[in-house]
């Protein structure tokens, strides 16, 4: 018995050590860029910063916020995240509400159309041609319109709406409410976990997206934060040029600006997602079981 207990302790020690290392590997990169972003750019180049900023400064952030290039990119990114998430959640739920009626005529046909579209795609080039033909290239719309319907969340929302008790809707039907009224003021308010999950995923998707900014947009004012980050990473990722390149009199370097933009891009996600985690784990399970 004592030997078994000892073996158990060893086993525990082994597991906790590995998990602790994994935790460190996951967290430290974020912490590292955070302290570098608060460190004077020219000083960061000397290295040897591991646990805390050496010469603390806010000038990286001041530079970031005063540069119109970064400032505008931030505005566009926030706009597309807010508008894109709102449109995506509302439209996907509206279509899902229609599909969730079990006695819907042609229901099977509608579902086949959705599922086929989920598994097959035409690829990037024909997609580009379509966007070009309907005039979405080089507009703000290219960020928010094509992502209005998410087939994955459509199926999740359908199964979610089917669980809502029918009695809830019946009273509204008797009162003569229209289908849209029922959807808006009865179905949506009781679907908060679903809305939270969808908002998080669509929002993060919008916030992080760079492919559309790189592919479908040439206008400078439409560039997003992630696109600007690629530009600056490419600039400093040519060896032996990062040091000093772009260094101004203020001590802000290309690299410190890059790190600052990374912190700005990660911060909202880190702040929001722990609160929504409970919901999205449920949501993903629902999707993997029924989808």
């Amino acid at each position: 018995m004592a030997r078994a207990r000892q073996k158990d302790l060893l086993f525990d020690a082994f597991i906790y050590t590995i998990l602790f290392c994994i935790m460190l590997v996951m967290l430290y990169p974020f912490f590292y860029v955070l302290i570098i972003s608060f460190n004077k750019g020219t000083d960061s180049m000397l290295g040897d910063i591991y646990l805390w900023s050496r010469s603390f400064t806010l000038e990286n952030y001041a530079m970031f916020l005063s540069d119109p290039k970064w400032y505008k990119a931030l505005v566009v990114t926030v706009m597309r995240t807010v508008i894109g998430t709102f449109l995506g959640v509302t439209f996907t739920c509206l279509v899902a509400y229609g599909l969730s009626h079990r006695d819907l005529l042609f229901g099977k046909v509608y579902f086949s159309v959705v599922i086929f579209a989920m598994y097959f795609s035409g690829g990037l080039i024909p997609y580009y041609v379509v966007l070009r033909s309907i005039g979405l290239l080089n507009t703000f719309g290219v960020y928010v319109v094509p992502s209005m319907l998410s087939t994955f969340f459509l199926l999740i929302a359908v199964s979610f709406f089917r669980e809502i008790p029918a009695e809830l809707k019946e009273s509204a039907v008797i009162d003569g409410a229209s289908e849209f009224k029922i959807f808006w003021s009865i179905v949506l308010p009781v679907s908060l976990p679903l809305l939270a999950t969808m908002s998080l995923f669509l929002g993060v998707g919008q916030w992080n997206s760079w492919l559309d900014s790189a592919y479908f947009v040439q206008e400078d004012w439409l560039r997003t934060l992630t696109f600007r980050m690629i530009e600056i990473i490419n600039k400093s990722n040519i060896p032996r040029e990062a040091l000093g390149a772009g260094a101004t009199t203020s001590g802000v370097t290309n690299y410190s600006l890059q790190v600052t933009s990374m912190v700005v891009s990660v911060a909202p996600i880190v702040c929001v997602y722990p609160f929504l985690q409970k919901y999205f784990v449920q949501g993903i399970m629902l999707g993997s079981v029924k989808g």
Partner: protein
Amino acid sequence: MNLKVAIAKTNTTKQWPQYWKRFKKQWPLHLFVGMGMLFLLIFAYTPMFGIIMAFKEYRIVTGIRGIFTSEWVGLQYFREFVTDYRFGEIVRNTLVLSLLKVLFTFPAPILLAILLNEVRKMAFKRFVQTVSYLPHFISWVVVAGLSFSFFSADVGIVNKLLMKIGLILEPLDLTTNPDYFWGLAVGTAMWKEMGWWSIIFMAAIAGINPALYEAAQIDGAGRLARIRHITLPGIKGTVVVVLILTVGSILGGGLVGSNFEQAYLLGNSINNSTSEIVQTYAFKVGLADGRFAYAAAIDLIQSVISVTLIFLSNYVAKRTSGSSLF
């Protein structure tokens, strides 16, 4: 036979007004769903038909109509790709990157889930979980920036640390040397998605009957024995399904993030000989050089291989283990 036809006829003639009545009653719902269908028609189905431009002399100025009106050129673009001087290298890079990523990143979430399951301190368990999902929500752009901060020869903290403790004299070009690209891509993919995919295995483990563990414990099974004889068999079905999904999407990068984003963001002009893959090449010749039909042909080859792979792996899984997607 005649009777059947007659019955069918009367049924349909009876049903049509009923259908119409139902439709009239449901019309707002059909309006909602119809908008969704229209959306899919434009953004999902039109591009699917657009694939035929891979077989045509397509020029972008002709728009969508050009897809149908341009002249057929048959397999010309496919032949051109196969005889391209970079063909061998690009195909090799695509396959090696995909295989390495599956090989190393498929077992990682399973191991993590099993380890987490053995933790009895709930607060610690939950914290590790929360932290391990976090990178999934970060864009590949930031991950590329992070890997630059850690591994580059100039500012990379790893190089500076190694030099300080005297393991190396010269900084290693981890982010630019072609020899290191595959390792870099596999490592960052694992870092980003390991925690995320462990969710599904955690759920599978949670579904195992606790009585089995109790019974095994009474029979004297240690913790390793319980993992081997109860946990692993208990999640076998889930493992197979996830494996099918992985193999089916192997060319896109498996389940651990897109090959394209990695190769595009971590690749540069210096490590190009190992970082150029089919998708980045199609993107460059397609959108950057404006050779749309050629790029569509390259894209098509890849989709056909992917769809074949998913059916093949599904078939093999069904025959060998009984679990399958469809």
